[in-house]
C-alpha cells in the first residue's frame, strides 16, 4: 500500500505544467474556438512528444502503456491549462483500436501525437437520443470513429460544426457508413474516457480555484481584500474541500480501473469542478461574466465535462451497480 504519486510522476506533472504555462494556452484556445487549429495542433504535437497519448497505447505499437495513473497525472495538467482538442476522445480511440488487426495501422501515429482522433459513441444511448453520434472536434480529427451497436466504424466525414458552451469544444456529427473496422472492439474504452475526463475536470477545478484565490487576494473593496471576508473564504474553502476529496477518487480509479470507481471519480471530479466554476464566477463578479476575460475558458469546460462520457446520473448508476472498496 502506497497511495501516493512517486517522484517521477510528480516530475512528469511539473514538466507538463511548465510546458503548458509557456504555451500560453488561452490564446491557443481562442484560435481553436475560431476554427484556426494551427497552434493547437502544434501544441498537440508537443503533448504527444511528451508521451501523454503513448500512456494509453501498448509498447508493441509505439506506446508506453497502459499506464492509467500516469495518464491521470497528465490529464490533470491538460485540464489545468484548458488545453483544447479531442484529448479524451483520442485516448478512447486508442483503446478502441487496440485489437491486433487495427493497432498496427492506427496506434503508432496516435501514440506519437501525430494523429488527433475522435469518437462518437452511439452505443451509450439509443440512436437519435441527445448527443448520440456526435463527436468532439470532428473537423480537425484525422481519425473519426463511430462506436455503434454493430461495431466500430471509420466515418467518412463529418457534418457542420455546432458550438459548445465551452468555446474550445467544437461539436460535429459524424457521417454514417464508412469502413467497418471491427465488430467487436475492446470494451474498456468508456472506462478510460471517464478516467481521463475526471482527471481533466479535476485540473479545470484546480485552475479555477487558483485563479479565484488570486483574484480575491488582489481585489479590494471597503478598503480590504475581498478574500478577507468569511462569506468569500468559506465558499473557496468548500471548493478546496470538494476538489481534495475528488482527487483520491481519480487516482484510486486509475489504480483499480474498476467501473464503479471510475464512475465515482467521474461524477465527483466533474461536480467538484462545476461547483468551483460557479463559485469562481460569483467571486470574480461581473468581470468573470465576460467572454473576454480568460476565466470563461475554464468555466465553459467545467460545464461541458459534466455531461461528457456519462451524465452524473449515469455515473451514479454505475456506482450503485458496483462494490468498490469492499475487501
Amino acid at each position, binding site marked *: *500500500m*502506497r*497511495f*501516493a*504519486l*512517486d517522484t517521477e*510522476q510528480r516530475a512528469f506533472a511539473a514538466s507538463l505544467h511548465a510546458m503548458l504555462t509557456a504555451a500560453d494556452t488561452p490564446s491557443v484556445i481562442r484560435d481553436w474556438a475560431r476554427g484556426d487549429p494551427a497552434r493547437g495542433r502544434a501544441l498537440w504535437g508537443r503533448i504527444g512528444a511528451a508521451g501523454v497519448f503513448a500512456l494509453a497505447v501498448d509498447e508493441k505499437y509505439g506506446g508506453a502503456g497502459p499506464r492509467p*495513473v500516469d495518464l491521470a497525472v497528465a490529464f490533470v495538467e491538460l485540464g489545468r491549462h484548458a488545453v483544447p482538442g479531442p484529448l479524451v476522445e483520442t485516448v478512447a480511440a486508442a483503446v478502441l483500436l487496440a485489437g491486433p488487426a487495427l493497432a498496427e495501422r492506427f496506434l503508432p501515429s496516435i501514440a506519437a501525437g501525430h494523429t488527433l482522433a475522435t469518437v462518437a459513441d452511439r452505443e451509450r444511448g439509443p440512436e437519435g437520443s441527445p448527443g448520440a453520434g456526435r463527436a468532439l472536434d470532428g473537423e480537425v480529427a484525422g481519425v473519426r470513429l463511430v462506436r455503434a451497436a454493430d461495431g466500430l466504424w471509420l466515418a467518412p466525414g463529418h457534418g457542420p460544426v455546432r458550438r459548445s458552451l465551452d468555446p474550445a469544444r467544437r461539436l460535429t456529427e459524424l457521417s454514417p457508413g464508412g469502413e467497418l473496422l471491427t465488430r467487436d472492439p475492446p470494451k474498456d474504452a468508456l472506462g478510460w474516457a471517464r478516467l481521463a475526463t475526471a482527471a481533466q475536470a479535476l485540473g479545470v477545478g484546480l485552475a479555477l*480555484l487558483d485563479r479565484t*484565490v488570486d483574484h*480575491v*487576494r488582489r481585489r479590494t473593496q471597503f478598503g*480590504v*481584500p475581498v*478574500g*478577507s*471576508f*468569511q462569506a*468569500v*473564504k*468559506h465558499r*473557496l*474553502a*468548500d471548493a*478546496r*474541500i470538494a476538489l*481534495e*476529496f*475528488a*482527487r*483520491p*477518487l481519480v*487516482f*484510486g480509479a*486509475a*489504480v*483499480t480501473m474498476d467501473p464503479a*470507481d471510475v464512475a*465515482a471519480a467521474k*461524477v*465527483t471530479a466533474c461536480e467538484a469542478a462545476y461547483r468551483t466554476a460557479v463559485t469562481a464566477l460569483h467571486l470574480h463578479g461581473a468581470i468573470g461574466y465576460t467572454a473576454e476575460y480568460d476565466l470563461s475558458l475554464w468555466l465553459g469546460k467545467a460545464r461541458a465535462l459534466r455531461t461528457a462520457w456519462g451524465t452524473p*446520473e449515469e455515473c*451514479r*448508476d454505475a*456506482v*450503485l451497480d458496483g462494490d*468498490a*472498496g*469492499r*475487501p
Partner: protein
Amino acid sequence: MDLTLSPADEEFRAEARAWLAAHVPAAPLPSLETADGFAAHRAWEAELAADRWSVVSWPREYGGRDAGLVRWLLFEEEYWAAGAPARVGQNGVGLLAPTLLHHGTAEQRARVLPPMASGEEVWAQAWSEPEAGSDLASLTSRAERAPGGWRLTGHKTWSSRAAFADRAFGLFRSRPDAPRRHEGLTYLMFDLRAPGVTVRPIDRLDGRPAFAELFLDGVFVPDADVIGAPGEGWRIAMSTTGDERGLTLRSPGRYLAAADRLRALWRERGSPAWARRRVADAVMGARAYQLFTYASASRPLECSPPGPESSLNKVFWSEYDIALHETALDLLGADGEAADGDWAEGWVFSLAGPIYAGTNEIQRDIVAERLLGLPRGRR
C-alpha cells in the same frame, strides 16, 4: 500508486475479522450515553483489550500492537463492518493518548495509558467554557500554584462523556498576566471524583446525558498530572486538536460500513428512484474518504496531518455523516421519527459533528487562511 496490501497486512486484517466475528455482541449494546450502556461499553473495551484489540496503533508496552496507520485503518474497516459497538473511550484514546505519546513523560504514559486501553479509566475532555467556545483562547478557568501541584477553579462545559467518565483533561489559565492570551495556559489532567469537582450532566437533544458541565472549586492536581511545561498548554492542545480533526477521530471504516447499511436499507425499501442519487453519493463519499485517508497514511510522517489539512477532513466527514443519516431517516418514511429506530441515535449524534472539535466555520477559516493563503479577517 499501489492499493494492494502486503501479505502481512492481509493476515492482520484476517486476524481482526476472525476475532470480531467471534466476539462482537449479537445484540447491540444499550446507548453509551446511559448508565447501563456506559457500563456495557466499558466491559466491551475490557474484552477488546484482553486480546490487544482496543488500541492497535499504540506501542505494545501500553496494550497496543504497534500497528502502523494502514493496519489501524484496516482494523477500523473490519471493526465497523462487523457491527461492533461505539467506542466509549474515544476521547481519551483519540485526544489525550496522542498528546501523552508526544508530550507526556514516561511515567505519565505508563500510569495513564494501560487503564485507558482497558476501559478501566474513561476520559472526558474539558475544553469549552460558557464564554469560550470557538474562541477557546479566551478561557478563564484557572490553575493556581499550590504546594506539590495546582488548584483548579472554574467552569467547564460541553464535556462529552463526563456524565459517567472517570477523569478529564483540558486547558487552564496558569498565568493570567501573560502578555498574550494564548500564553500562560497549562494542560492538566484531573479526577472527576476529586474533592471540589461537581459534575452536572446535560441532556443531549434526545434526552440522553451525553455531556456535562464541570464546576471546579479549588480542585488539587499534583505536578505529575501536568502535561508538558506549565504555560505550554496551547501549543500542546493544538497538536491534540490536529489529531482530533485528523485521522484518529473518524476512521473511514465507520462510513464505509454506514454507507453499506444505507445501501442495504435502500434496497430493502425497493430501491426508490428518489433516493438513488443520495445513496450513490453516500457510497462515493465513503470511498473518497477511504482513499483520502490512504493517501494521508502514505505521506511521509513529517508532512501528514495534524495541521491545516485535517480541517478539510473534519468538514467532509461531519457533513457527510449528517447527509447519510438524513437519507436513512427519509427512507424509513413515517417510521423515521421513531426515537428507538436503528438510525435515530446516529442522526442525533451526527448533528453534533459540525459543532464539536472546532466548528466547521473555524475549519473553513483554517482552510482558507492556511491552505489557500487568504488574508485573516474578522471572525
